[in-house]
């Protein structure tokens, strides 16, 4: 065979083979040979279909921005919690499964259904009608093509039909709702008596031998955790502020660009006389208007008191002329620019010169000022501070990579990085892993501290952004392994503990005896019962959670019924149920039934996902999922 090929490298056989090799590339693209690299790595596979690490990362980012847009402060530790990661991944897997099932079961949405849906979307409505203009603009803003948007909406509708649509099918027999609601909305009359542990402590006796024996047995519990003494270098935007410079010009420029932000609550009351010229006025018309205005201004200069009278007679602003030119009060941004500039530069009772605007010539009188503006001078320190911090932030982002690289490349000491960036290397006190995580507000940093590289090889830790704009690298100065505490240090505590243990036992003995007596219909005189309260599952009436749990677990077939439990070291607690009420008003019942049906609908939907999962092959790359936080 090989001989044949060699002999025919020019011939038709070679061409056939070449074609056979080329076909896969043509059909599947060269990237199918490389798709196990980088961001294409699968974090899970659903029936062989990959969910890439990139897709998963995007989903996590979406969760983050959704939480942030709800105004919540996002705790990075929460984003890295195993539950959240799992649930995000589960969501992606379910979506894949449902999409595959939609194909497989042949769910379809017609073009008419799709267009009806999009035409009805509230985002695109204007005056109660679909606006093509808003539609196109919104899509453009979100960088979506029409076909992509439509196929996304189609997929959304298919999901609604196939998955959420199961909720439409819920029908629950009355016998079932009755059964469930009876317990969910039941009311019980409950009282509680506590047999306090404390009252038995005096009766207990603990010998020194017992204390010693306990210490020997539980030595591993009496331990000081391992501790480290660290030094650290902190690069922070706040620390960089001192090196930043902001010129007065920059402050002024910022003020001018954002003047409306600094307006404060200042309002000005003014009157004006308008001598207008039309929009299409010729130079002569303008000049005539100007002469007339100048004439009025002259009269006013002689006798300012005639302002109202002259306004009524001459002003061509129909809104204000009848009121003697009064415009009422207004803030910045309400009037045309030249008018506003004039008004906001005048003193009270002053009459302006002629002010030209697009409407004509104004003569303005300032009547009063209320509220305060934030003048440039007043705002200057604040603006300067803001600008300094902005600059520091920009500088921080610029330096961050360099900082990270320096601590990594010169990992034998923090001095180089401190010198390079003008930082102080600061020491810490002794701290355990937990204390360290609190001190730096970062578990990740402490994980890095206790890694072999940092702890044993004494290298700089990686640079960790412990909070926004704060980058820290640490190194270990000293290390103390976990050590047992001495007997003398802990014997007092042990004695107390043993006494409490004994007292707890004594309280429980009495409690159990009392409980038995009560259950058999007897009386126990020395129990102090709290006044009876009526509770339901949503209304604890101040009872504690363990009492609530007991109260609804007690078999109430014979009343009064009792149960008891040991409440930690505190007491032995007896719970009494004296009355059970299953009645539910008609109104309340309707609501409760609806609530129950909604729960069943949710269960249908989750059962659907579970069913698809059971029928598929889902493989999750656990290692990748767990390590993903570090990247």
């Amino acid at each position: 065979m090989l001989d044949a090929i060699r002999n025919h490298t020019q011939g038709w056989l070679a061409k056939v083979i070449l074609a056979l090799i080329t076909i896969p590339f043509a059909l599947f693209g060269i990237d199918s040979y490389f798709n196990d690299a980088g961001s294409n790595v699968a974090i899970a596979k659903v029936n062989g279909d990959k969910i890439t690490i990139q897709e998963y990362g995007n989903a996590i980012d979406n969760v983050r921005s959704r939480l942030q847009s709800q105004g919540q402060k996002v705790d990075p530790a929460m984003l890295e919690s195993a539950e959240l990661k799992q649930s995000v991944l589960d969501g992606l897997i379910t979506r894949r499964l449902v999409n595959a099932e939609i194909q497989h079961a042949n769910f379809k949405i017609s073009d008419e259904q799709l267009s009806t849906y999009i035409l009805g979307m509230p985002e695109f409505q204007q005056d109660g009608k679909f606006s093509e203009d808003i539609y196109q603009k919104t899509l453009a803003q979100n960088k979506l093509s029409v076909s992509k948007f439509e196929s996304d909406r189609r997929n959304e509708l298919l999901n609604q039909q196939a998955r959420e649509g199961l909720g439409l099918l819920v029908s629950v027999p009355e016998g079932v709702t009755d059964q469930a609601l009876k317990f969910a909305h039941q009311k019980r009359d409950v009282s509680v008596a506590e047999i306090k542990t404390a009252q038995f402590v005096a009766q207990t006796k603990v010998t020194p031998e017992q204390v010693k024996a306990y210490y020997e047995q539980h030595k591993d519990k009496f331990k000081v955790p391992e501790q480290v003494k660290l030094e650290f270098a902190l690069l922070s935007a706040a620390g960089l502020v001192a090196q930043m410079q902001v010129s007065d010009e920059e402050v002024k420029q910022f003020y001018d660009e954002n003047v409306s932000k600094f307006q404060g609550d200042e309002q000005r009351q003014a009157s004006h006389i308008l001598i207008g010229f039309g929009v299409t006025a010729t130079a002569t018309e303008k000049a005539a208007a100007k002469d007339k205005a100048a004439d009025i201004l002259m009269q006013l200069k002689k006798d300012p008191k005639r302002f109202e009278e002259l306004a009524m007679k001459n002003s061509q602003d129909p809104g204000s002329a009848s009121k003697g030119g009064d415009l009422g009060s207004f803030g910045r941004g309400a009037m045309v620019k030249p008018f506003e500039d004039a008004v906001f530069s005048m003193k009270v009772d002053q009459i302006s010169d002629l002010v030209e605007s697009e409407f004509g010539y104004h003569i303005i009188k300032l009547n009063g000022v209320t509220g305060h503006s934030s003048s440039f001078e007043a705002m200057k320190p604040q603006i300067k501070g803001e600008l300094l911090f902005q600059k520091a932030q920009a500088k921080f982002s610029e330096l961050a990579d360099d900082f990270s690289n320096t601590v990594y490349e010169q990992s034998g000491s923090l001095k180089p990085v401190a010198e390079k960036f003008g930082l102080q290397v600061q020491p810490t006190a002794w701290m355990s892993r937990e204390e360290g995580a609190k001190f730096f507000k970062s578990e990740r940093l402490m994980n890095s501290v206790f890694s072999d590289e940092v702890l044993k090889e004494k290298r700089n830790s990686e640079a960790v952004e412990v909070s926004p704009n704060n980058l820290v690298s640490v190194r270990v100065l000293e290390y103390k392994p976990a050590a047992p505490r001495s007997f003398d240090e802990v014997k007092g505590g042990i004695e107390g503990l043993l006494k409490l243990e004994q007292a707890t036992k004594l309280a429980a003995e009495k409690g159990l005896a009392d409980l038995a007596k009560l259950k058999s219909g007897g009386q126990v005189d020395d129990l102090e019962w709290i006044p009876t309260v009526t509770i339901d599952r949503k209304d604890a009436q101040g009872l504690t959670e363990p009492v609530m749990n007991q109260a609804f677990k007690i078999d109430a077939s014979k009343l009064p019924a009792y149960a008891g439990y040991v409440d930690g070291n505190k007491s032995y607690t007896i719970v009494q149920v004296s009355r059970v009420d299953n009645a539910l008003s008609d109104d309340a019942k309707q609501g409760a039934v609806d609530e129950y049906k909604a729960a069943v609908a949710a269960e249908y939907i989750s059962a659907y996902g579970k069913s698809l999962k059971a029928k598929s092959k889902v493989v999750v790359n656990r290692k990748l999922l767990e390590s993903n936080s570090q990247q």
Partner: protein
Amino acid sequence: MAYDLEEQEQLDEFKAWWKKSGKLISNLILVVLLAYAGWQGYHYFQAKKSVEASTLYQTLVTTDTSKLADIQAQATKLTADYAGTPYAGRAAIYAAKVNIAANDHKNAKTQLEWAAKNAKESTTKAIASLQLAGILFEEKSYDAALKLLSSDSDKGFVGLKEDLKGDIYMAQGKKTEAKKAYETALIELDSQGRLSQYTRQKLESLGV
């Protein structure tokens, strides 16, 4: 045309071979192409059916539930003419639900039985048999209901079925069996879901 003698030889061989079996091969290719076209056509037809069924189903579930006869007719059309689509089974269950609300158990049962047997999705089948068992429970045919619930079915719906079993045993006064059923239900139901709360409470009332 031929570049050298050897190639000429091969070409001749090929020509001879083609003369002998060329017809067979071209026939084979024709058959494959036809099969492919048929397959494509079939899928096109299925998709067209599904689009129609989807529209009909949408109308069905938005029809006023007081118009029972109307709903009945629409569902029948879907089950009769569109049985191959997922919408048929769902339409039957939906119509059964409306019938149950109107106290017509007989029609509801027929529809659920149809769906339990003929629905295209295994999940729809499971929902139908779950609801059928619910009706039997209402009619106090406990054993028939339990038998239906015990038959093997879709993995996702085990929790709901066990929960219903528990309710039936409770009605029969069989507390031990009820407890066991509720316990299984709690393992199978969505632990984050609201329904599991109700099941937990029912279980608690049995003194666990």
